[in-house]
Each structure stands twice: as structure tokens, then as C-alpha cells.
């Protein structure tokens, strides 16, 4: 096993890790804001990927150029989900924790069915985007351009999210998160903040979906391939922590790749899960979770 192979695999794992991190970021944001775990998160990713595919098929618009479009679309979907379902789920008097888990779970089943109805069950993929099939050479290391671009865009998206958290709106988010009842007293509209939170959370998944559509196939059930990793990422990083999602995503991408290389590809998720369980032994709220 040569050093360049290990380096190649490690870098590939880290690039995938950035995508995991961005998929997880939206989940983490929403959780941090209102204690809701969105079990339909993977399906938001799936919707974004179909949006990319359909727009590409209809207008020939390259996935990269669709970034703002799909992000905006997903923002709208996120707000709609909040208004139609989550606001109601949070409003119930009993079992709020359980109700929100199963409402979002029902939503995920519903969206898979709806995608099958609307788009059919065939596997789709976009093979003639600007990035498709190109590679980047770094010495002996060869990296596929779509993944490199995905990694870069994910980093930019993280930078944007961090910047947002420093703005006035970010402060309002933070305040809402700290004390959900007190903010009403100082004139912050909680419902509006929550809607925006869902919008931003869904938009980040949208961005991840656009970049994934460049190199991953699309099907109604594609969301579940990433959703599980996203939940583990968020729990490992600490619910509600952006930095946690980033670090955990990178860690998972790396562990997954190295487990596949050194142990056995079919056990790569076991490697990830083992790290997760080990970390939770010592930090029950994840790496960056507030204790």
C-alpha cells in the first residue's frame, strides 16, 4: 500500500466528508433552533437533486448555475414544511418530542412516494455537466473535479453560514435558541425566526444536493443513503453546532475511507458508528455539544 494511495483515499474521504457536513449542517441548525430532528432531511436532499435534474433536462442549465435557483427553491420548501407541519407539531400539547419525530418520519415516506409518482422510479444521473468526468491532478493524486468542486462549495456554504450567525439575524437565531420564550418579550417574532431557520436549513441541503447531482445518481430513495450519515454527523458533532457538523463530517468521511481501505469496505459504516459510540461515551452531547 503506497503512501500516495493512502493520501488519495484520505483526501477523497475528506471531500465526501465536506458533503456530509453540509447535509448535516441544515439538520443541526434546525435542531439547535427548536429541538426538532427532521427525519425527512434526506428527502429534502432528494428533492433538490430531482430539481437539478429536471431543470437540467428542460433548459439545459448546468447544475453549477442552478445553485442559487435550487437553494431558493429549497428555502421555499423548508419554509412551507415549517408552516404546514412543524409549527403544528410544535403546537401540540402532548408528546411534542414524539410527535415531531413521527411527523417528519411520515413526511419522509410521503415524499418518497410523491417522488416516485412524479419522477418515476428509474435511476437518473447528469453526465454532461461542465464538471462531469473531469479530474484534477495533484502530483500522483488524482481527484475527480465534481467532488473537489462539491468540497469547495460546501466550504463556502459553511463560511456563509458562519457569517450569517454573526449578523443581526444570526444573533436573533442565537437568542431564540438560548431562550425560546424570552425572545417574544424583546420583540423577536419566534415563528418568523423558525421559518427562516427551516428555510436556511433546507437551502443548505439544496446546495449539497446540487453538488451531489454532479456525480451521484438520483432516485426517489437516494435521500436515505445520506440521511443516516447526516444524523450520525449531527449527533457526533453535537446538535446545534455548526463547527461540530463540519468537524464531525470530515471525521466521518475520513474514518469511512480509511476503514474501507485498511479493514473492509463493507464495514466502513461500522467504523464510523464505532467512532460515534466511542465519542458519545466520553462526550454524551457530541464533540461540540453544549453540555
Amino acid at each position, binding site marked *: 500500500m503506497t503512501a500516495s494511495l493512502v493520501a*488519495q483515499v484520505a483526501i477523497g474521504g475528506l471531500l465526501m466528508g465536506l458533503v456530509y457536513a453540509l447535509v448535516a449542517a441544515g439538520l443541526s441548525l434546525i435542531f439547535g433552533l427548536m429541538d426538532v430532528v427532521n427525519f425527512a432531511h434526506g428527502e429534502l436532499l432528494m428533492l433538490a437533486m430531482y430539481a437539478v435534474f429536471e431543470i437540467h433536462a428542460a433548459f439545459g442549465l448546468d447544475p453549477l448555475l442552478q445553485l442559487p435557483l435550487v437553494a431558493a427553491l429549497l428555502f421555499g420548501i423548508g419554509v412551507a414544511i415549517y408552516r404546514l407541519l412543524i409549527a403544528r407539531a410544535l403546537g401540540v400539547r402532548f408528546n411534542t418530542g414524539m410527535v415531531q419525530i413521527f411527523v417528519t418520519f411520515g413526511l419522509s415516506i410521503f415524499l418518497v412516494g410523491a417522488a416516485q409518482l412524479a419522477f*418515476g422510479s428509474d435511476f437518473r*444521473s447528469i453526465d454532461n455537466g461542465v464538471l462531469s468526468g473531469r479530474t484534477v491532478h495533484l502530483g500522483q493524486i488524482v*481527484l475527480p473535479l465534481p467532488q473537489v468542486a462539491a468540497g469547495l462549495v460546501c466550504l463556502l456554504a459553511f463560511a456563509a453560514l458562519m457569517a450569517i450567525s454573526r449578523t443581526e439575524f444570526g444573533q436573533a437565531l442565537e437568542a431564540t435558541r438560548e431562550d425560546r420564550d424570552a425572545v417574544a418579550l424583546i420583540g423577536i417574532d419566534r415563528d418568523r425566526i423558525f421559518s427562516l431557520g427551516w428555510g436556511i436549513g433546507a437551502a443548505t441541503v439544496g446546495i449539497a444536493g446540487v453538488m451531489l447531482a454532479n*456525480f*451521484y445518481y438520483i432516485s426517489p430513495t437516494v435521500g*436515505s443513503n445520506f440521511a443516516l450519515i447526516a444524523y450520525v454527523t449531527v449527533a457526533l458533532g453535537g446538535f446545534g453546532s455548526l463547527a461540530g457538523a463540519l468537524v464531525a463530517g470530515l471525521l466521518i468521511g475520513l474514518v469511512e475511507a480509511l476503514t*474501507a481501505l485498511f479493514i473492509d469496505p463493507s464495514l466502513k459504516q461500522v467504523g464510523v458508528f464505532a467512532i460515534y459510540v466511542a465519542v458519545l461515551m466520553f462526550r454524551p452531547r457530541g464533540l461540540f455539544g453544549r453540555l
Partner: protein
Amino acid sequence: MIGFGRKLLLGAALLGMAGGFAPRQAQAAPPDILIGAVYPLSGNAAPIGHDAQQALETEAAIINGHHDVPMLLGKGGGLPGLGGAHVKLIFADSQNNPQIAQSEAQRLITQDHVVAIIGSYTSATAVTISQICNRYRVPYISAENSAPSLSKQGLTWFFRPSPTDNDFTKAMFDFYAAIGKKTGRPVHSVAIIHENSVFGTDSARIQTAMAKAAGIKVLTDISYQASTPSLSVEAERLRAANADVVMPSSYTSDAILMVHAMHDAGYTPKAIMAQDAGFIDPAFIKAVGPLAEGVMSRSSFSIDAVKTRPAIPAVDALFKAHDNGKELNDLTAREVTALQVLADALNRAKSTKNTALRAALRTTDIPGAETIMPWVGIKFDKTGQNIEGNPVILQYQHGQWRTVFPFAVATAPAIWNVGK
């Protein structure tokens, strides 16, 4: 919200009553012959199930209609042995779940009174369906389940026209030997990669055994989790092994990912010999485009064998009309043939009684030329396995699948890069 909840409940109750208590009405004379078909129509394997549905409907249209296809029962007009009765398919969704497959098969048998069941693509569902059919003494026609173990369950109502993975894998190694002799560039090593499912694990097991028997080194045997987010490390390991032939057993989604990952790793295997499945799915070809060029797969069907199988163009055209212009492939052709075999047995039995039908199935003897398959013919042994179904090796050349082995039926020479 409460009102909404009540309405939903009411809806659910109505649904339950409608589904539970309203038996499907069979039409009057000559009554349609009901045949059950259990396939995954939702979930990850849904595209395959959808194609299977269309393939079976295509063959039903041939049997019932008047399309004049030059093969057994191709004249149409129903089954002459049963007074021109039409065959009618009743589909059920297994959701690729053995328990649901079982209860759906049970429903088809006890509620719809189907005379036989055809299915089911995945091995796990085939196990439960074939078991339940055996208990109810209803024939199960396995159209495309290829796990050899299925015909070793000791079931007496199980019939499989298609070859098994044993036959398929044997064809691959026969091909290696033959092409090695022909070109002087034999296969010395293979790399096996398979998903860790029933299908993948079983396939890899047989490949490893046969490689050993043939004196070919297995450089690596990679098992991976199906529907994984990435196969790039797996591709790196394949590249590192650099075997003469890469032998994947994967479903469509992973096949797409794998070929892309190998390309991204800058790795072009000298040869890819696929265990069918995802690699012959039209969605795979569409998704990977030129990267599919040169891929070989075992198959029980060759679309280009039109000279010896004159029915192929007509069936293919009808199937295209049914299924959005998709071309017949190894799976859909086997589904067409499965229904043809069953219809032939019904026709000869002149009865829909289960024992008569089984007796007729056991005496099935269809020459290959009467089907669309390149087989010698269809004849079942005691275990219900067709002993005349000989597989072929296909290669994707210049945008279409060509038969490259056995050389006797080949329509194009194999493009063989091993040893170059």
C-alpha cells in the same frame, strides 16, 4: 385538526373495508386465467419491478391479442387449449420485503385464486413466495431469481426456466478459457466486487470457487454495503489489485457509482465481467454513457440473435411500446419467457387445476427457436430447474449489446484487452 384526523380515520377504515371485503370479480365465459406476479414496485428496486410489470404485460398482450409473433403462442387469440381464454395478470408489490412478499402471495392465492405466481427479482422474496406457493400447491415460476439455492429447497411446485448463477458463472469461466485459447491472452487473475446481499454474496462465493477450479487467482474480493454514498475507496482497491478482469455483482445504483468511481480513479479495467443485474439495466447505460463501452455481462438473452430467434424484433417492438421505448434486456426477456412457459403449460393442461398444471409444467419441452431466448430449449428437471437454458456472454459495443460467446451464436467478436 381533530376533524382532519377523524376524516383520515374514516378514510383508513373505508380503505380497509374496500380492500378487505370486496373480492375481485372474474369475468364470465371464457373466464380469464388469473396469474399473480409479485415484484418490488416501490423502493430501491422499483425500476426493475416496473420493467418486469411491462414485460409480463407485453407477453400477455401477445398471448391474448393478435400480434402474430413467430414463437410459441405468438399467434394470439388466447389459449386454444382452454377455449381461447385470456391470461390476466394481477400484480402485487413486495416492497422487496420477504414478509410482504409472502402475505401478498398468500393474498393472490387465497383471495384472487390465481393459478400460478410469477416473480420476484430478489432472492429473499423468492424464498418466501416459493415456500408459500409450495404450501398452497400453486406453481411458482421464478422468472429471473438466479440464486442456485432456490431450486435446492426441495420444493415440488417450483419451476425456473432461467439458468442459475452456477450456470452463469460457469459461462464466464468457459469464456475466459475459450478466449484465452483463441487470442493467446488468457485470464490469470480476477478481482471480485459484490454487494453484501443474498445475490452478491452468493455470486461471489460461486465465482471464487470456480476461479480456484480454473486455476485463476482471485486478487481481491471486495464486499460493500449496497446503496453506499461512495465507492471510491473500493475503486482504489480495484485499481491497486489491477486484475485481468473485474467481476462485479451489483444492482443498478451501485453499478452506476462503481463505474464512475473507477473512471474518477483513473482506472480502466482491462475487462469488466458483470453478473448481470445493474449492469444490464438501461438506466445504467443511460447514466454512465460511454463508460459502459466494453463492459461484458453474462446474460440469458441476446437481443441481436434475430437470425435464429425471429420473434425478437416483434417482442422488442411491443415491449418498447409498453415501456417508454426501453429495449428488451436480460431481465425483461426472462419475464416474457416465464409467462410464455406458464401459458404453454396451461394450454397443454387444458385445465387450471393445480395438479394438472404442475403435470404439464413438468412435461414442458419447448425448443429454443420457439422462444426469444438463445437457449437450447426449456425442459425441467426434478427440482424444477430448466436443464436446457444455456447462458451467453454479452459485450456492450458501440452503443449496443452484442453476443460474443458462445462463439457459435456470437454476433460480434469480443473486444479483448486482457494481456495487451
